[in-house]
């Protein structure tokens, strides 16, 4: 079985993957918290779309479950939770503090995307799974970009979105390499994401109440002299 068995769906999935990566880049580059939240929601919708496409092609019920869970947790629950816990931080229109400026961030992002392909290629050269050629490298790239977001952002909400973007990347790869995801992986997605969101959200609220800001880059009391 290869991508050529489903030419139309493979093309659609490739388009989805390109937009998915673009959203991940947007989360790295955007200047405002609300914009990065919206880009994250778009990224989650694209993950859902890819899961549905693969679900149709491979006739896998599991992938529809992943799609449903992603919609419920990442596009509905998390924005709602952020609004409940730290609305003032999300809707304030100001620039996010960052450690590296945007042009350099984008250059480094490009390097990370190349790295993702360098890592994925030897895997794909020996093992094939339908759609893995599209989803594995793009998912890996999204993982690296999410981790990079966490490193360059100095504020709590963008760091949390970076973390969840990494999770999106893992599932974007995961749906192609293990389309018959064990029920347990669905359970993980269904339980893990809300729990992360809850814990991180509550912690953010506690930090906000205690310090009046969620600019965690300023918390530098703890370091070696």
């Amino acid at each position: 079985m290869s991508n050529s068995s489903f030419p139309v769906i493979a093309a659609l999935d490739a388009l989805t993957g390109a937009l998915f990566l673009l959203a991940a880049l947007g989360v790295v580059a955007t200047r405002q918290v609300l914009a990065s939240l919206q880009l994250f929601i778009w990224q989650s919708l694209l993950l859902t779309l890819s899961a549905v496409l693969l679900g149709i092609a491979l006739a896998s019920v599991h992938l529809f479950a992943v799609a449903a869970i992603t919609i419920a947790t990442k596009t509905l629950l998390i924005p709602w939770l952020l609004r409940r816990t730290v609305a003032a931080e999300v809707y304030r229109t100001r620039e996010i503090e960052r450690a590296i400026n945007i042009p350099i961030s984008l250059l480094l992002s490009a390097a990370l995307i190349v790295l993702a392909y360098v890592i994925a290629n030897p895997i794909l050269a020996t093992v094939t799974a339908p759609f893995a050629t599209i989803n594995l490298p793009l998912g890996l790239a999204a993982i690296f970009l999410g981790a990079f977001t966490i490193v360059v952002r100095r504020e709590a909400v963008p760091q949390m979105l970076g973390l969840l973007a990494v999770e999106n990347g893992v599932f974007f790869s995961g749906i192609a390499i293990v389309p018959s995801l064990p029920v347990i992986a669905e359970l993980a997605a269904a339980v893990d994401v809300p729990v992360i969101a809850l814990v991180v959200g509550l912690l953010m609220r506690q930090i906000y109440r205690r310090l009046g800001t969620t600019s965690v880059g300023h918390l530098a009391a703890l370091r070696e002299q």
Partner: protein
Amino acid sequence: MELAAILILPLIASALSLSTLGRRYAAPITLISAAAVLALAISVAGLAAGSGRIDAADGWLTCDALGALVLVLVALVGFTAALFSWGYIAGRAGHPVQHVQRYYGLYNLFVLSMLAIPLLANVALMWIAVELTTLLSAFLVGYEDTPEALEAAWKYVILTTLGAVFALLGFLILYWGSRIAGLEPFTWLGLVEAAPRMPPTLLWPAFLLILVGFGTKVGLVPMHTWLPDAHSQAPASICALLSGVETTTVLYVILRLFPVISGAHGLDASSWFIGFGLVSVGVATLLLIYVRDFKRMFAFSTVEHMGIILVAAGLGGSEAHLGAAYQITGHALAKSFCFFAAGMTVMAVGNQEIASVRGLIRSSPLAALALVAGGFAIAGAPPFAIFVSELVILKAGFTSGHALAVGLLALLVVIAFCAVMFNINRMVFSPPEREIATAAIPVTCKLTLLIAAIPLLTIGIFVPAPLHALLQAAAAAMGG
């Protein structure tokens, strides 16, 4: 039967702690549950050392000797830390009763998640348990509600969860490989069996993703940056759990990977283990020299010990693996004891700065004695277990032709020893510059020290036959 009971008891204790009954009795409820779990864990370990493996709940739960060793250590520190919490948490002024109840509710769940790691047969479920250890302990790390504690909790959650998500991709790739090899149940035993039939191009990235991802939670350099913060800002009872056993339970997962990787295709996991381990020991030793906060000092020492255990696992051979199993045991006992001693010192003098504590032997003799004993035990002086285990590891390294690696290791261990003892010596014996007002120490904390001292002092001199059998079986489970 026992295996299921070990997981159900903390759940009940957590629910009771949060109920109205918990308003007055959360501490004793937690303690009773922890004692029962410890008794069950010891009986499980006895069985596992004898028969090799026990299964329960239709094969969903399983425990071999290596798992049983980790299980017993978690249960033991879970018990002593619960006893220490009783006086320590009640003695913190300004915490309303709901906070104390929430502390015990989360405490039990946190211990439960750690107990589950060696017991869950399915590897994907085990991943969830590892992830939950972070999420359930986040608010325990931030319990003091100071800006520093919240900062530590934030870094802890974001970085270790990021690591766990990387590891998740590693496990998904392993699952992919096991499907290709035609394996259905996704268990460690099955993975070892299926590994030779998996494509090495899959095993390799999976191994690295899990090593780096879970290595973050173990505190391997350079992913260790969150560890000294979380392990120094949490309440002492939680530090004992974080440093003493939480790191070990995640390291256990990495050790489980060793036979899967090195059993197949001649992939060289050893070099990665030795490399990561040595870098961790080296950087931790350097940080130990410059450290200014005594709880951070013990945290860096954890990074050092995780590195030593990883090196020992990487050396391979039954001798080195026996040393690793013994070192895991010695570290869990000594590090939890050190944090109890550190917690008493904080209670007595009111801060964590090494420079501000002088002449502790006169102002608070019990805390001072505990620091000295704990320091010797963790730094690896005779007659403590870590001295013996480090000797075993070094000897195994020399005889197996890794003279350069273990020579370096020996040098670093000696420097780290001097750094730790120099700081403790200054805190305990140097003449006080001024009279420090010291506070009284709760009786349960003193009792904790006495109880924790018994295994600490004995196992370096005398290893009881059942424990020896368990250690040997655990070493065998790490693979040749």
